[in-house]
């Protein structure tokens, strides 16, 4: 037994594959946060008055809040005055009107990340709204989407071009009063994506955004809003990698989804922010508020996430099941290695009758990583015949990591039914040996076993994303077993 344990902890290190910094002059605001900074952000973005007012209200509210202390994560105090709240790639003259006008260096960055924008435009059939640092730089397939009446643009653009839509929905799912990080985001959000799918439209392609933190010491405060009108359908992909950094970077995004009657939103994430080095130095603090509102009858919101990056992840993509017969789903793979910490899960709030939710969470811990599942299933009084099924599985690789589950269940309606299954497995020496004996080396064996463990979640991802996710899992766990 002891021999097994020792061998499993022999760590061989591999450099973070996507660690490079693009050399583009960025125009950053000085560090610090006050009302003037909020005004400056709003001014730079040429926002209408109501947007500024909203930001200021959020800022003032944020001042009254303190950081949440309940997550099962540890990190040194964040100095919010040391962060610069705005940075944008410098434009040569006018903003780019098409991809051809985008800074070639930027495009090169995407190519290094395996996202050749121009290729994608032609081959993959994926519309990309690429967020570099905080400002959108390239949007494709706009015309095709416009034909269907689908709006897919940066948040800044949406505030200017579609103010009535933004004003109606922003903060309707995650109000700025929601929590510390949501309030901060509301005050200083730089950019993000906006999607609007009109009534009865099936979005003709997967919508995809790649985020990337670049400028040093710059917090990232994206804000994404997706509105699916009655009977519409959209699948949205979010994926990101970040360059190697020594100092910690704060990432506090907000994502809001609104689904009307019979509408369906599928939101998939592959998160690969820089996790820090093997000593736990550096890495992204990923404090995200993601929430979807199933507003309409029989609407459906499905979250699928593969979280392999970040030093700290604090994230609970949730569903408010308001509409009768609405459905919420959460499929998650969270991997922690070295000193990574993740506190992630979901909240399913059943308000409407006959609402249903499914939670499948797969937590993988390696190295000294700490992985916590935190989930709430709440059945409100009016949610007759609500159903929930939760499955939380943890896999441990080595003896120094940890897996924790915090399932909370609050039931106020007796006609509901809740099922909860949980398991913890240690990746078996005998499984690894079995693979070895067939000629498969240990690292490949671990990948295989872990991917098998996550299968139920991967099958929820769009095909090309699933492939990427599997590769990512391999990279993340490299060297986790000797």
């Amino acid at each position, binding site marked *: 037994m002891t*021999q*097994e344990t020792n*061998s499993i902890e022999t760590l061989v290190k591999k450099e973070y594959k996507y660690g490079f910094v693009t050399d583009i002059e960025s125009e950053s605001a000085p560090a610090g946060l006050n009302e003037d900074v909020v005004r400056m952000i709003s001014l730079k973005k040429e926002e209408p008055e109501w947007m500024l007012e909203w930001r200021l209200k959020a800022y003032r509210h944020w001042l009254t809040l303190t950081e949440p202390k309940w997550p099962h994560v540890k990190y040194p105090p964040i100095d919010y005055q040391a962060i610069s709240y705005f940075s944008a790639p410098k434009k040569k003259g006018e903003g780019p009107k098409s991809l051809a006008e985008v800074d070639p260096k930027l495009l090169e960055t995407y190519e290094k990340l395996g996202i050749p924008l121009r290729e994608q435009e032609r081959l993959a059939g994926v519309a990309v709204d690429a967020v570099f640092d905080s400002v959108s730089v390239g949007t494709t397939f706009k015309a095709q989407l416009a034909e269907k009446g689908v709006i897919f643009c940066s948040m800044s653009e949406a505030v200017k071009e579609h103010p009535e839509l933004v004003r109606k929905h922003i903060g309707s799912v995650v109000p700025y009063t929601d929590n510390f990080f949501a309030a901060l985001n509301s005050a200083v959000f730089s950019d993000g994506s906006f999607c609007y799918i009109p009534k009865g439209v099936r979005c003709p392609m997967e919508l995809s955004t790649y985020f990337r933190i670049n400028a040093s010491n710059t917090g990232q405060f994206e804000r994404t809003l997706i509105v699916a009108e009655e009977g519409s359908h959209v699948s949205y992909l979010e994926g990101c990698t970040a360059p190697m950094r020594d100092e910690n970077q704060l990432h506090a995004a907000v994502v809001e989804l609104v689904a009307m009657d019979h509408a369906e939103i599928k939101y998939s994430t592959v998160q690969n922010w820089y996790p820090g080095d093997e000593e736990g130095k550096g890495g992204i603090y990923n404090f995200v508020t993601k929430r979807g509102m199933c507003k309409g009858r029989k609407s459906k919101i499905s979250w699928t996430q593969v979280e392999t990056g970040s030093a700290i992840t604090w994230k609970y993509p949730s569903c408010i099941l308001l509409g009768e017969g609405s459905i919420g789903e959460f499929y998650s793979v969270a991997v922690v290695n070295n000193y990574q910490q993740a506190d992630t899960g979901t909240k399913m709030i059943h308000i409407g009758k006959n609402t249903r939710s499914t939670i499948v969470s797969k937590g993988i811990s390696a190295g000294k990583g700490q992985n916590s599942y935190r989930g709430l299933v709440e059945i409100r009084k009016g949610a007759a015949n609500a159903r929930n099924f939760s499955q939380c599985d943890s896999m441990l690789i080595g003896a120094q990591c940890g897996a924790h589950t915090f399932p909370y269940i609050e039931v106020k309606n007796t006609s509901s039914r809740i099922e909860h299954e949980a398991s913890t497995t240690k990746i*078996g*020496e*005998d*499984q690894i*040996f*079995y*693979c*070895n*004996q*067939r*000629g*498969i*080396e*240990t690292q*490949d064996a671990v990948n*295989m*076993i872990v*991917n*098998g*463990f*996550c*299968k*139920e979640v991967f099958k929820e991802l769009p095909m090309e994303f699933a492939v990427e996710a599997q590769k990512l899992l391999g990279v993340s766990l490299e060297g986790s077993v000797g």
Partner: protein
Amino acid sequence: MSNTILEIKNLSAGVENKRIIKGLNLTVNAGEVHAVMGPNGSGKSTLASVLAGREGYEISGGEVSYLGRDLLEMAPEERAREGVFLAFQYPVEIPGVNSTYFLKAALNEIRKHHGEQELDAMEFLSLVKEKMKLLELRDDLLKRSVNEGFSGGEKKRNEIFQMAILEPKLAILDETDSGLDIDALKVVSEGVNKLKGPDNAQLIITHYQRLLNYIVPDFVHVLWDGRIVRTGGKELALELEEKGYDWIIKQEAVPA
């Protein structure tokens, strides 16, 4: 040149504080089938594990040469790629990992090791089809996760199916017969026989002479307390069946 595949000289091995293999000698040549019999706990599976390179065993003495190389120096996956195959007494389940995918990965690792072209999905499938006939394996098993939910007999049959695909030089079968029904025993034995060739060898661990009616060994060894205490031809198995192990062990107790 000699056609020796495996040569074990005075091997001693065990786990922490416990010697299990105590000075074992065995030579296996190409084209030979060796049966290893012996009471429970005598060290048969341990021998198989040590040969395959399972971690956690301490080698305290002796040497093992495989095709002229020091086997004990080789990593388990290297042994496998060099043609050592162990059909496990208790094959493990690997949930979520598709059987076909697993086996294709294994075969391609072996091929890569020998500088051969990897097989693509189509080529692999036609190989699978061919070998499935040999073992009369139900094809739905290959669509499932590795060994997951397989019956005891199905697991054993699947091990031999893998052996058929991987075509090892030295196949070690650890109690492949236990758990097989009579018909399956026949099918599996026939499969094993067909895989026998002039360039490879088989080491068959079993408790029952019954298996040896189908797979006829060139040698039968009796392993007792970590050593081979008797070697004979196939008739030794019959004798054991009749008299049990006590008979040999008693003789063994008498100083030679």
